[in-house]
């Protein structure tokens, strides 16, 4: 088992981590085999469960710890960090829904 990797991400969506970004986050995390958790103040929840993500009630500007353990942990964190950076915009949504993962930006 590989060691777990951690990173800090910031919620940039003005509405906070509401249902749509949470849904996108679950879909993205679900593409990776690694175990991925996210949280704050030591309370970490499953990043692949929308119900868990909503319990965070993460507002705009909130900093969250992201943790991944598994074979593709580094890739998963890169992709999720990118999602947070982009503020979960719609283009990102299309890329996630799309057939092939794109890396064109």
């Amino acid at each position, binding site marked *: 088992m590989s060691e777990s990797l951690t990173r800090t991400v910031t919620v940039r969506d003005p509405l906070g981590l509401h249902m749509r970004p949470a*849904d996108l986050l679950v879909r993205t995390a679900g593409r990776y085999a690694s175990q991925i958790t996210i949280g704050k103040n030591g309370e970490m929840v499953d990043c692949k469960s929308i*119900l868990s993500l909503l319990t965070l*009630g993460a507002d705009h500007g909130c900093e969250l710890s992201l943790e991944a353990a598994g074979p593709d942990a580094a890739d998963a964190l890169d992709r999720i960090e990118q999602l947070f950076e982009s503020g979960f915009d719609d283009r990102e949504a299309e890329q996630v829904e799309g057939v092939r993962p794109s890396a064109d930006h």
Partner: protein
Amino acid sequence: MKFADFITTGAIRAKLDATTKEAAIEELVGALLEAGEIDADQRDDIIASIMKREELGSTGIGRGVAVPHTKHPSVEKLVGTVGVSEEGVDFDSLDGERVQLFFLLISPPERPGDHLRALENISRQLRDETFCRFLKQSSKAEDIQQLLAEADDNQFVSG
């Protein structure tokens, strides 16, 4: 935030008649109208706006639960209600399960924080499987109201 802060007791509905997504939303918005929480002339626009949100992705979040919602300028504070369907409704849920338990929310556009707090409260309480199961088994609005009050009183979760 507690359920009592955003759930209108008089709009809670057990035994929903609806068998489709749109009908379930209409029934619950109708319940809020009857309870005097929304204006009659805004009803159709609110329903259309909740349906439009569903097109972006179902708010059926799994475990037989959906949280249909919208922002709407006609409400001054966050209003919401709870509905239970005995048979369950096909809601295009993320996990494909039929939805038995609905939390419908309408929030003023300038208060995104309240919406987030309501989602936080709903999801935290629903993590308790007993609470979730009892709600789905409720056949009377009074039973649902009682369960929400007990949840507000921290009888289902510790944290």
